[in-house]
């Protein structure tokens, strides 16, 4: 109860003008009542932000919410669906799993729930496509993150006399210069429990998009381009040149595999520097500030630049999808509300979220760092969703395992790619 009051207070003074225009719940249902069950991955502070985001809708409609958080959303959703007890609305594990749920007929199409004209003016086509299966919209994005950012410590850069590179050649030269000085340039950590390896898949995706362009990237995602093709092989090799070389990565490849992804950038804050560069998505700043509470300060001891383009420019992204499993008036109304800029602005202002909506202005972001994240997404000429998340689950997991094998034994790349080709043949079939 106290928590709810606190949440209400937070949204009251922080949330723009939630109660003013009556825009939440576009249908204008007024008192809807009833309950809605929601299943998502948000726990703790994220859960508070999510609840703050839907609070104006709850206040307006009088709906009671039953919110369940789980980190293993895929297993939980699958079990609940198979058991005949799906949540009304759920966060989806990713576009790959979303396709599966949609083709099995579990997800309710949103074409007549959400006003598509408004939706397509507020959202970039990339987000709409990523939420569409077989020409029907089934998933909406509430919050997204930018991938392929390179973080560095400006103080250490100044001490070493280094400067932020202008282009990819500049980055290569910078990395070589750092390695020659005796300090490995990169800090990389791939451990993440059952999902270990995913940070390396981000690396490879960034290389595929920048080396071979969005068309090749799309074919690769769709399973039409074999892993043993030159394009994918050269992305693996570009990553391996840095991640498997003792001189290039802090602690050598062994430490790359044994370090948790949240600690991969810790070496940026060592004194003297143990590494200078860390490649990760926008959310890593939270880890910096948790791990080094008095040391990590945005703009002073950590800053970032987007990974430069090589042959092509592009930005890789990820995001949190929501889908509707039960067609109830409450679920319809909440899905409509979640796409509104008013709703997304609430989480943006609380920090830790980037809105995919073009209607959420840059000045809604609480600090300069998140403003710059948002600008990267909104101004990018080519954005592509995280490839491994778009692939079928079996392919995605094989990809995670393959990059770990590769870092351990770079010479076995041929065998690893052949193995991935075999998985590709079966994973897309069903």
């Amino acid at each position, binding site marked *: 109860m106290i928590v709810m009051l606190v949440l209400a207070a937070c949204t009251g003074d922080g949330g723009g003008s939630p109660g003013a225009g009556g825009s939440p719940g576009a249908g204008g249902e007024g008192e809807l009542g009833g309950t809605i069950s929601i299943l998502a991955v948000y726990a703790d502070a994220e859960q508070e932000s999510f609840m703050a985001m839907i609070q104006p809708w709850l206040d307006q409609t009088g709906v009671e919410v039953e919110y369940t958080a789980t980190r293993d959303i895929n297993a939980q959703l699958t079990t609940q669906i198979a058991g005949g007890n799906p949540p009304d609305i759920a966060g989806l594990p990713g576009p790959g799993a979303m396709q599966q749920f949609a083709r099995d007929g579990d997800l309710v199409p949103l074409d007549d729930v959400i006003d598509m004209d408004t939706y397509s003016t507020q959202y970039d086509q990339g987000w709409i496509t990523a939420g569409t299966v077989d020409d029907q919209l089934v998933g909406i994005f509430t919050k997204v993150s930018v991938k392929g950012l390179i973080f560095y410590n400006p103080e250490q850069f100044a001490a070493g006399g280094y400067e932020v590179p202008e282009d990819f050649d500049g980055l290569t030269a910078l990395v070589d210069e750092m390695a020659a000085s005796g300090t490995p340039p990169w800090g990389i950590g791939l451990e993440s429990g059952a999902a270990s390896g995913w940070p390396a898949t981000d690396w490879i995706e960034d290389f595929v998009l920048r080396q071979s362009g969005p068309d090749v990237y799309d074919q690769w995602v769709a399973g039409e381009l074999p892993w043993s093709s030159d394009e994918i092989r050269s992305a693996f090799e570009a990553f391996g040149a840095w991640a498997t070389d003792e001189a290039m990565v802090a602690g050598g490849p062994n430490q790359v595999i044994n370090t948790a992804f949240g600690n991969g950038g810790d070496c940026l804050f060592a004194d003297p520097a143990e590494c200078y560069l860390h490649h990760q998505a926008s959310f890593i700043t939270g880890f910096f500030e948790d*791990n080094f509470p008095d040391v990590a300060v945005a703009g002073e001891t950590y800053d970032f630049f987007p990974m430069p383009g090589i042959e092509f420019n592009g930005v890789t992204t990820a995001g949190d999808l929501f889908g509707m499993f039960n067609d109830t008036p409450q679920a319809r109304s909440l899905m409509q509300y979640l796409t509104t800029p008013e709703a997304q602005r609430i989480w943006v202002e609380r920090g830790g979220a980037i809105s995919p909506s073009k209607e959420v202005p840059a000045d809604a972001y609480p600090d300069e760092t998140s403003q710059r994240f948002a600008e990267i997404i909104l101004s990018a000429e080519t954005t592509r969703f995280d490839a491994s998340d778009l692939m079928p689950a079996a392919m995605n997991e094989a990809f995670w395992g393959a990059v770990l094998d590769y870092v351990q034994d770079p010479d076995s790349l041929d065998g690893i790619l052949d193995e991935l080709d075999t998985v590709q043949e079966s994973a897309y079939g069903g």
Partner: protein
Amino acid sequence: MTVPIGAPADAEVDAPARPVAIAGRRPWTGRLGLHLTLAIISIVWLLPTISLLISSFRPEAATNTTGWWTAFTLPFEFTVQNYLDVLSRNNMGTSFLNSLLITIPATVIPIMVAAFAAFAFSWMNFPGRNVLFVLVVGLLVIPLQATLIPVLQFSVDLGIVGSFPAVWLAHTGFGLPFGIFLLRNFFGSMPREMFESAFIDGASPTTAFFRLAMPLAVPAIASLVIFQFMWVWNDLLVALVLVGGFPQVAPMPVTIANLVDSLGRNWHLLTSAAFISMLLPLFVFFALQRYFVRGILGGSVKG
């Protein structure tokens, strides 16, 4: 009475103590190997728990960036903040209550049913007794996860999904095979003559069960209580699937799991949460432990 120095007086009275006295006369080196082995095994066994305990008193940044063994190097950094954080998080109190509301019925019901069934399997004659018993014991090998979806469908059909009776029933079902197996062997090892004389004196099976079997089976029942209580108390999966995780019904493991956010941050809080949630099971264990070893051997040696 004067107490003699050393143990010879006892050794003379107490026959089993004699080997100890003999060993004592030999140089202690003979037992050094044994003690050393025991000490090493104990340390290896306790190491994870000790590291968890140490980590639970370390600040977040220290836990995130260095190993627990570095806690003993300068500067010493210890804090109770993790415990305060866990206790002040959403609904930890409600969750504790929910856990009790789930665990107590989910311990009492299966053990009662198991005791009745085990007595029938041991001392009542009915056709198909052995086939039924083999069937029940066979259920021991079925993994819980494999039955989760049918059990959920059943709960949805009964309309109890999302409420505590759903978990009570599920845990009763999951706990019964082992309970029946353990108790049947324990009841079965009781002397036949005892029940025969009771029956000759006109005792009904009900009387024999409540007046003879149950009082004698206290050690076995106590150890079953410990098993079942700990299993249900620590259960995350069944509770999450059958009652869901929203704050009004979530038990402790669900709330504790939700301390960690979607990116795996805040895991340092799990250390202190583990010790907090351990308190009640530890209390139950120590309260019943004098029965525990006797009970776990129950029925294993049939006299």
